[in-house]
């Protein structure tokens, strides 16, 4: 750590048993002026209760409209080390699997061209390289691409597709999330690097309803693994759980949200027609229960954090889709959605806000999907809305 660095307020964040970003940045402060001035500017922000960053909207690398987040210090003379402090988003690997060599490769490049600070992983999923100067952007980009890495998305484009570990290490995976994330990333390179949408579009892929990427809450399009048939039950393993003292009645049966499970002695009975695939029973008894065999994904649309409008959760738009390479059905759906949103959406309008504005019925018609019961939370009770078929029947009847 640099001897002349005095940051009493930030030092408070080093106390306690949890990891501290202050401690991490301090470890570089002796070597990098950028890290030292970052701490000094942050300390001043804590003292003055205001931020000292300026937005740089034009910085980037040639040909790309995303992947670089421009930042300048508002106090460049006081903190010259962070006069420029741009961030690069690096397209992460599917499922966030890296070798130590791969991470070392990135950090060697970043030590040479930037602050050396790495954030794994940003909320979009990317590897986030924090802090470099404008003139270092192209050399960094060149060094990264020579090693096979690429920038991720930012701005009004497709954000870097993100997925859970999927079948790489999870037996619950109902489809190959790793393969789909890789496929979509490659299929939509233009959309990822050249912003052309009304606003950002995030796709997150979770292999099962446990939804480890939080797709239901954090992605414009969530592709969440699900099954159509019955939960697979191993009776012997159920009996073992009961015999071992697990409170199956209290922890599983009574926690089932639809009450579709019964325990009869050592035997479990599931009314699968009422199962909502919440995963609770499977999570509690993983050796005895597992997702069904007819697997695919449900697709949700519209989740977002509060920026222009309030936060939204995703709503089911496709209750079940079989997902197998080359994933043409997903491509077709994505492109129909983008085309309609592109044509009728407004500036900075996320897909969820767009659907709320034009109505679900109009949206479905626009993308060529039929309304289904799974798309709504509760049956409609407004008597002044009618299905189009009713109009047709009435019209025909009058003739």
């Amino acid at each position, binding site marked *: 750590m640099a001897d002349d660095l005095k940051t009493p307020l930030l030092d408070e964040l080093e106390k306690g048993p949890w990891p501290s970003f202050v401690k991490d940045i301090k470890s570089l402060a002796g070597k990098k002026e950028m890290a030292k001035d970052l701490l000094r500017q942050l300390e001043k922000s804590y003292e003055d209760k205001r931020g000292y960053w300026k937005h740089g*909207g034009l910085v*980037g690398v040639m040909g790309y409209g995303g992947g670089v987040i421009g930042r300048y210090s508002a106090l460049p003379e006081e903190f010259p080390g962070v006069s420029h402090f741009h961030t690069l988003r690096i397209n992460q690997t599917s499922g966030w699997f890296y070798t130590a060599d791969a991470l070392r490769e990135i950090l060697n490049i970043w030590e040479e061209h930037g602050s050396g600070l790495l954030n794994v992983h940003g909320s979009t999923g990317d590897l986030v390289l924090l802090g470099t100067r404008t003139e270092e952007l192209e050399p960094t980009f060149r060094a990264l691409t020579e090693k096979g890495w690429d920038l991720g998305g930012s701005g*009004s484009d497709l954000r870097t597709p993100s997925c859970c570990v999927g079948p790489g290490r999870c037996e619950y995976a109902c489809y190959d999330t790793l393969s789909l994330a890789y496929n979509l990333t490659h299929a939509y390179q233009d959309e990822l690097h050249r912003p*052309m949408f009304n606003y950002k579009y995030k796709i997150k892929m979770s292999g099962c309803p446990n939804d480890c990427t939080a797709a239901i809450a954090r992605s414009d399009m969530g592709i969440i693994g699900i099954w159509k048939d019955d939960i697979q039950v191993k009776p012997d393993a159920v009996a073992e759980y009961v015999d071992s003292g697990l409170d199956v009645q209290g922890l599983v049966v009574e926690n089932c949200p639809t009450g579709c499970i019964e325990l009869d002695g050592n035997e479990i009975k599931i009314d699968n027609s009422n199962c909502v695939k919440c995963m609770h029973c499977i999570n509690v008894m993983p050796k005895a229960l597992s997702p069904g065999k007819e697997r695919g994904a449900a697709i949700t649309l519209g989740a977002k954090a509060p920026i222009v409008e309030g936060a939204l959760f995703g709503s089911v738009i496709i209750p079940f889709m079989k997902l197998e390479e080359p994933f043409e059905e997903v491509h077709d759906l994505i492109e129909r959605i983008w085309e309609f949103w*592109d044509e009728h959406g407004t500036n900075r309008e996320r897909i969820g806000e767009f659907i709320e504005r034009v109505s679900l019925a109009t949206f479905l018609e626009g993308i060529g999907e039929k309304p289904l019961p799974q798309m709504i939370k509760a049956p409609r009770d407004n008597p002044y809305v009618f299905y189009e078929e009713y109009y047709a029947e009435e019209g025909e009847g009058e003739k």
Partner: protein
Amino acid sequence: MAIPVEQLADEMYEIIKESAGVKKLKGGDLTKAMVAKYGDEVSRADAKAAIRMLIDSGRCVYGYFGGSSIELPHSEAAENK
């Protein structure tokens, strides 16, 4: 007959120039302007290719302020030299 991509790029460039400092234009705005002018003679793919031409040649750059836009190259007020 399809409009040549180079012509689309030139016309888009003129629109961007006229809007500079007044309105930030997105790729979609430029595409819609060309479709409005030429109808079926312009495909979305052609419009996309024209935008790519503008960016890759350096005549225009991507900017970001809330949303992404396509702009003439310029230095920004926030920049520290």
